[in-house]
């Protein structure tokens, strides 16, 4: 199998970086509070700062860029095909004839940046295909195209 070809939105790394940064920033704020309240155990503070810095580096720089190189998607008349992940990578394909629902979902950050995710579900809970971080117009086009060719609900698709 050749890999799918379409990349996600060019703003995808940004949204991944912001999402990845949130827990580490919370952690950093807690650390700052701790440092102000209690200056003993200096080595522990230094260690915690190092861990946070490393976490920020990985989740804000490395993971989003890596992800952007891996994430690809494609839709044909017979199947939806995606490639996702960074450390752990997955290629997933589902036949259009067995698709049950097609929808988009957008988190607050997605909306801020004009992105949308497409979710294509089948009767198997292990088989849902997600095309994440698309430009909103692209996502709408994909959904329209998929609902068009999927002829949803004609059989029970199990």
């Amino acid at each position, binding site marked *: 199998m050749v890999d799918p070809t379409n990349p996600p939105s060019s703003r995808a790394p940004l949204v991944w970086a912001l999402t990845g940064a949130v827990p580490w920033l919370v952690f950093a704020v807690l650390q700052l509070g701790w440092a102000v309240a209690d200056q003993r155990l200096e080595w522990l503070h230094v260690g915690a700062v190092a861990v946070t810095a490393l976490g920020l580096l990985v989740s804000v720089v490395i993971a989003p860029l890596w992800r952007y190189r891996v994430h690809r998607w494609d839709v044909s008349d*017979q199947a939806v095909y995606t490639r996702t992940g960074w*450390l752990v990578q*997955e290629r997933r*394909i*589902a036949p259009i*004839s067995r698709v049950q629902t097609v929808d988009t979902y957008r988190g607050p950050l997605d909306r801020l940046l004009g992105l949308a995710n497409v979710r294509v579900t089948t009767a*198997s809970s292990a088989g849902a295909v997600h095309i994440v971080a698309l430009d909103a117009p692209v996502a709408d086009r994909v959904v329209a195209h998929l609902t068009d060719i999927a002829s949803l609900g004609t059989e029970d698709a199990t």
Partner: protein
Amino acid sequence: MTSTPAEPAWQRLSPRMLLVHPLHEALRELPLLIAVVVFGSATDNSVWVVAVVWVIAVVGVTRWFTTTYRIEPDPEAGRVQLRSGLLRRKVLSMPRNRIRSVETDTRLLHRLLGLTVLRVSTGQQAAGDTVFELDAVESSQVPRLRKILLAHTGQAAASGPEPGRSAVLARWQPSWLRYSALNLSGLVTIGAAMGALYQSGAWAALQDSPLSRTWRDAAERFGAPQTAAVGAGVVLAAAIVLAVLRSALTYGNLVLSRSFGVTGDVLELSHGLLRVRHHSYDMRRLRGGTLRRPLLVRLLGGARLDAAMTGVTGAGESSVLLPPCPRATAEQVLTGLVADPVAVTGPLRRHGPVAARRRWTRAMMLPGALGAGLAVTAAVDGVPVWYWSLWAGLTLGAALLAADRVRALGHRVDQHWLSARTGSWEQRRYCIATAGIIGWTVHQSWFQRRAGVATLIAATAAGVKAYRVLDVPEEWAWSVAAQASPWVAHSKWAR
């Protein structure tokens, strides 16, 4: 109310439930009841007790008056409906053509009164409030109701009631109990009982009793190691007895049969000595099965059989077709169901040296780390020799598991069936109809990419939903998928 003459009347459950409901209600409110009895005897005021018992009984009785059901006559467009609730009324309604299976369950009290609980399920998973359960109808009504509810599954529903052909696939034998003897569930039960005893404070009371003092004296005379050995023996024996007893009660009198009749091709399973359960499965929902051979059962030459059906949970008791039984029986039954002996017992294609190396690396990680730790400790201030012998035993066990895992690993695929086998402690071999596979995932961790292997996951709507082929060489992964699913082979990405 807009009721047309064609609409069927709402029916009540069996009036005998008037006896069962108050008792069940009392059992459910047992803590309250105990509290009231204690309070009543403390204050010498038995009026309270009588009042509360009355309220509980009346609430139980109203359940019968408020619960009604009806089955609309048209098997395709009609619905089945269940109304219940005293203050909060609810109506559960499902289209009749969506019914996939009918189960019955007869607990002891129900059985004494000739009653049966009937549960109807569609493809969706239902829990709690959304379970369509008729609790309970008279047992004599069950065959009639089942026939009505499953009428749409048969092609010949209109041709009248003809005695269907029926074949028994497997019948429970007392000798099957030997496979349950090595089940760990007995130990778990004992552990739970001990925990409860300890928690409730009964343990402390026991320790001060004269009985335990005489026991302790006897133990001292006997010697500590011997006492410990005897204690362990007693616990083990009790665990075996409990496990066998539990298996006998749950699976005793099991009959698995397949009938072709007015209701179509249906698989029927009934089991239980005291509490009798009966399931009917529409064979068109069958997508394969899993032969499970846990190490302790495998040592005695046994196997269990789980069904992979759409609309039936893949794990746990609801998918069990056969409890631990002779391997030949389980294989024979599965072969009969999938009508393809090669998918069930045919030779498997091995996954090669990389997959084998990964099994060994994983198994040796813990012994390796422990060994390194021990070596460091020994260099610093020495460890007793028996630590090392313990470590050697652990390492040997891990090595045996790894070797067994390597031996088990394999898959086979053709255009009709995908089969694969994995594991040692919990070995399983499944076969899944390729027509039921509705998605493929090729999953690779960083280590797997470096080693050039991948885990292939077939998604289905049946059984455990995700069926894995572990650590196949990555160049095989898509060709396995392509062999099973023409829509993969003919996709524009296939080379």
